[in-house]
């Protein structure tokens, strides 16, 4: 007798989709637990770690934000190979505002986020009308070129960069700002992509011709999403600048381009939660592997390949499937 694997939603999942969820504590907890986990974990438990590990989690939050930014762009079909472009622009805008005009972080952060996003969007506007591959190529090329430009023209401090920038008032504050913004981005974008607006965005990714035919200007929507994704990336850059008290060429480094993508792929594209999950696995892991030097990037590269080819859905989908469904073998009829 041949057997096949069957996956069925758990009873509690089915019940929690209906009115039961409002009347039973069990169903309510079932729904709340996965959502409460990151909130409680980030805001309550992480502050209890040692300062060294708190640093790691600030760094993780920055990469997670870049990964969310990447995921936002992917949802409309734009695959960015240069997240460091957004990070670098945000970093330099915040750094310049702080260095040349003495603006404090409370001002540089919002200005760098919005202003940096505007700059990035305008720079990438011409490529939006083309096939996706052009967007990938241009985003790969841009940060690498800007690096050489900065090196050559020595603007914004050249190779030394802008140093001695204002820090945040205390590591705990830093951490709370980072984690809070991360949670806002995570839940905010999940909500947005689940709404009708998100349906349009995903429609553009799926079949742009049909969305055009539905009377919508897809270029405008793509521009909006580009702006949103860039804003998150620029915020990460601005935040990182004040965290390091430094803005410079390393802001456009390859690391900021590759890590977020690796995190999103490992965790699961298109879910935002996957991006965060992936970052929270890869960044601490890379800290532990720091002793290996260049081998770290080799590791990322191979990780990317293995996950893209082998487990394309990502960890988050896998975990979610396990949470909501159970499997069993049944006879083939």
């Amino acid at each position: 007798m041949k057997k096949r694997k069957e996956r069925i939603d758990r009873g509690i999942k089915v019940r929690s989709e209906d009115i039961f969820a409002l009347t039973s504590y069990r169903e309510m907890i079932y729904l709340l637990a996965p959502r409460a986990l990151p909130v409680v974990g980030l805001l309550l438990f992480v502050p209890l770690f040692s300062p060294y590990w708190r640093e790691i989690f600030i760094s993780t939050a920055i990469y997670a934000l870049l990964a969310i930014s990447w995921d936002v762009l992917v949802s409309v079909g734009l695959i960015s190979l240069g997240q460091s472009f957004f990070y670098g622009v945000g970093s330099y805008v915040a750094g310049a505002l702080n260095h040349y005009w003495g603006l404090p972080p409370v001002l540089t952060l919002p200005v760098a986020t919005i202003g940096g996003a505007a700059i990035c969007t305008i720079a990438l506007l011409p490529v939006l009308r083309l096939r996706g591959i052009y967007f990938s190529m241009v985003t790969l090329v841009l940060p690498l070129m800007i690096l050489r430009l900065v090196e050559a023209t020595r603007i914004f401090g050249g190779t030394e960069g802008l140093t001695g920038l204002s820090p945040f008032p205390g590591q705990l504050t830093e951490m709370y700002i980072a984690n809070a913004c991360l949670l806002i981005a995570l839940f905010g974008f999940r909500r947005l992509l689940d709404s009708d607006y998100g349906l349009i965005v995903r429609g553009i990714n799926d079949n742009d011709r049909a969305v055009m035919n539905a009377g919508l200007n897809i270029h405008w929507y793509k521009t909006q999403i580009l702006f949103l994704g860039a804003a998150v990336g620029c915020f990460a850059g601005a935040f990182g600048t004040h965290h390091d008290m430094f803005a410079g060429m390393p802001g456009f480094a390859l690391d900021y381009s590759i890590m977020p993508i690796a995190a999103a792929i490992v965790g699961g594209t298109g879910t935002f939660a996957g991006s965060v999950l992936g970052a929270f696995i890869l960044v601490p892991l890379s800290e532990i592997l720091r002793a290996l030097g260049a081998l770290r990037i080799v590791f990322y590269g191979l990780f990317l390949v293995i996950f893209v080819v082998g487990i394309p859905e990502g960890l988050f989908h896998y975990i979610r499937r396990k949470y909501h469904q159970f499997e069993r073998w049944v006879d083939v009829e």
Partner: protein
Amino acid sequence: MLLGTLIYGFVNSCLLALLAMGFNLTFGISGVANFSYGAIYIFSGFAAWIFLNSAGLPYALCVIMAIGLSATLGVLIYHVVIKRVKGLALSEVMATFGLGLAIMELFRYFDFVGFKYTLPNLIEGSVAIGDVYIDYQRIAVILAAIALTGFIYVFTHYTRTGLAFRAIAQDERTALTFGMDSDHIAALSMGFGSALAAAAAVVVLPLGTIAVEGGYDVLLNALAVCIVGGLGSTVGILVASVLIGYAQTITANYLEPHWMMLVSLIAIAIVLCIKPSGIFGHQKELEERI
């Protein structure tokens, strides 16, 4: 100064054309954007170096083996990685990019860093044209570019595999109905592109050292030339190489050397504003894709 700019500009153009040729061909034929291109370039350089310095083989043999090895690597990458994700744009790009990254940084980890890593000139010495001195290696670059372009033309117009390449490039569906195995052709196109990368490496690397950063640079330049010239069009690559090559040399000679990268940026920006698919590109804009 003018003669020097003229000559060295041409050398630069040929160099860019050499670098971009392999990447452009692989994409033009099978639609595979091979982001591990830079890694294969560096790989072939180091392979030739190892054959020469550690195994002590005659250089001509090293070159042939390096090209062969790179072609094999390209085909292997196709069968192991690309074939499984073909058609999914994101996965293709990520997988090849990740692989390229791993290969390049692996060399860095094993300490293949330093000035001793360089390939010998094909011909030593230099010659004077007017009052400009140009070394034979740079002339070799020019000759190699011309030779390779000619070879590609003959290959794609007069051999069975080459014609199959063009058929698939023009219309994959129809070519399939003629019994061509698109998988097989795609693997061959990867091998072909990789071999071209190796050929370019052997000619260009003697001008400097074999450095891992060079791998990123090669990908960067190849992409810039392809964006400007139009992905998939050999003529476009040649024209774009001449444009960017001369623009870079003129900038270096008459302004400042470090504005060279700005030239590429401006070229890309202009192209994107006027004709986004490249000078000779035939990717239809969104509205034109029915």
